[in-house]
């Protein structure tokens, strides 16, 4: 049962001189309840923008051009801002990039988490505080730490505290944007373990946004690979890793070091992603693609279900 369905989401950014950058174009996804989806891509591919668009948290220059986001029988793109606020945090929440630095240094961590609860639910302070204790425990922090200040927490602990804050109103969906960047490998493992546990114990649905293929392989059920603002490939994690069909996905796999098979040469993909203000008319990956042909530079490939539940946007890949 899909808990959230995104259809053809497109987001533009307006620049100072009026041109529109097509940051996200025609992205669709479907997240099953209790499942986790990995949104994979490199910097500038639009994955963070897409998630901010989902929550309608784009900056002033961002415009949702088209698309539907179906949750609980409602298209979130059509409701008013006031209505949307009821969904944010209580139904869908986000632990965004750099969240560990988002805590107010002069307030106790417990108070900040409590405030998130008080703002969205009609409970008294005592109840909120109790829930804070429970939340901290859920994320692996001893409840007594609620009375401490952010600087007394380590980096990993702050990340957990932010996760606790995101869970404060028991949302159905958690979006985690690069939750493990800038953390030590062992702490990364702890955080990923935590997310897995939450998924199982709370039946939480997770969208994990990252550039790290290893992380996605560890804990995600499905993977959506983005390139240049569009979906390149979308399939289950097993299929993506063992039968990648899009040339970008294939090359990305080869560029990622595999500690079990340390080869002496890692592949890299020459060139760089297209600048958003100078998008090529055809496939956005074509300039760097090893499989390209004439049609690729002329036409943008549509996303096609080439095998059951395996979507690829590439002219060279047939169903």
């Amino acid at each position, binding site marked *: 049962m899909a808990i959230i369905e995104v259809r053809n989401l497109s987001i533009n950014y307006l620049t100072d001189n009026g041109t529109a950058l097509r940051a996200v174009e025609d992205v669709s996804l479907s997240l099953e309840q209790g499942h986790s989806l990995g949104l994979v891509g490199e*910097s500038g591919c639009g994955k963070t923008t897409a998630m901010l668009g989902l929550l309608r948290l784009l900056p002033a220059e961002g415009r949702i051009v088209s698309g539907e986001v179906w949750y609980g029988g409602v298209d979130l793109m059509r409701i008013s801002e006031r209505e949307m606020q009821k969904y944010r945090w209580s139904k869908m929440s986000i632990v965004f990039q750099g969240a560990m630095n988002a805590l107010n240094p002069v307030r106790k961590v417990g108070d900040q988490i409590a405030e998130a609860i008080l703002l969205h639910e009609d409970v008294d302070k005592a109840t909120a505080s109790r829930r804070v204790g429970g939340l901290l425990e859920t994320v692996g922090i001893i409840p007594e730490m609620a009375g401490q200040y952010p600087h007394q927490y380590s980096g*990993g602990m702050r990340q957990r505290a932010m996760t606790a804050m995101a869970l404060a109103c028991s949302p159905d969906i958690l979006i985690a944007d690069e939750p493990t960047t800038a953390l030590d490998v*062992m702490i990364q493992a702890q955080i990923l373990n935590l997310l897995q546990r939450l998924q199982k114990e709370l039946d939480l649905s997770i969208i994990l946004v990252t550039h790290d293929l290893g992380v996605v392989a560890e804990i995600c059920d499905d993977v959506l690979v983005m390139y240049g603002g569009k979906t390149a490939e979308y399939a289950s994690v097993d299929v993506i890793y063992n039968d990648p069909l899009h040339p970008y996905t294939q090359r990305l*796999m080869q560029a990622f070091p595999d500690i*079990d098979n340390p080869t002496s040469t890692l592949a*890299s993909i020459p060139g760089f992603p297209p600048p958003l203000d100078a998008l090529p008319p055809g496939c956005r990956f074509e300039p760097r693609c090893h499989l390209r042909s004439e049609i690729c530079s002329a036409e943008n490939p549509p996303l096609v279900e080439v095998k059951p539940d395996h979507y690829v946007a590439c002219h060279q890949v047939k169903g």
Partner: protein
Amino acid sequence: MEQEVQREEIVLQINNLRTLFPVSRGIIDTLLSKPRRYVHAVDGVSFSVARGEILGLVGESGSGKTTTALNVLGLVEPTEGEVLFNGRSVLELMQSRARLELRRQMQIMFQDPYESLNPRQTVFATVAEPLEIHKLVKSRSEMVERVKAALDDAGLKPPETFFDRYPQELSGGQRQRVVIAAALVLNPEMLVADEPVSMLDVSIRAEILNLLRQLRDERGVTILYITHDLATAAFFTDRVAVMYLGRIVEIGPTKTVLSDPRHPYTQALLSVIPVPNPRRRRKRMILVGETPNPIDLPSGCRFHPRCPVASDQCSQTEPQLKRVDADHLVECLFIV
């Protein structure tokens, strides 16, 4: 320290290096004459690097890898022990007239491509600057030639098109290449690279690491590669040293350490590195808690509070590096 297996010419020798930083005391503690506390950033490290070798220093935060690098470069003074570069003490060299020559022979690369370059300097000026500092060229045309060659060797082709560009116009990978060019232009003997690719996209990391390896192959540059990412170290280094709380817990040829890790910390690290294949989800040894702070060190073996196989003895006795194989040393009471 047991004698290491003889390798070819040793470029860098570190002997019992300790670098402690005093923790600033509040006024009350000073008045009460409480004993000074120290951050044990590097606490007894010994290793050597042969010419043309790529040695990886792998560790998490608090392991002391960056401080070790700063000691090697002579930018930080050791509290105890010595750093020998080509047989001569780096400390002495830094205080003598040979200081500038040392700075020419040892170069550094940092992690953040967005911060490594002066945003108000063109690419040309950045790469030419080392030549100016060391007065290595006599004419403008010679300078242009050398800058061109350096940019070309760093993979920025055609080099002239990059002369007047500013860092903001370049991508992360290109900026790191400019940093490499600026290091190359001096023909250094050694390059200390502190997390050179961690802030780059995955698809570009290989390029930069391949470039560095090419430099070693073609010019015999010795490389000290500092990282927290064991996966890239696996692919890039000849030998690797795993550090924890200021000490080396395991050191040896990369292939050996990765296929036959003997220290529980190395084993744990290897087990938690995410593997890009869902069918190989391995059993992860996730350690509890975080690396303790380097000020109040655990007694005995400093890893014992988190060690999955620790015994009573581990909290009382400090282990020393022991040889388990030809070139493979481990610091653990129970070599498993």
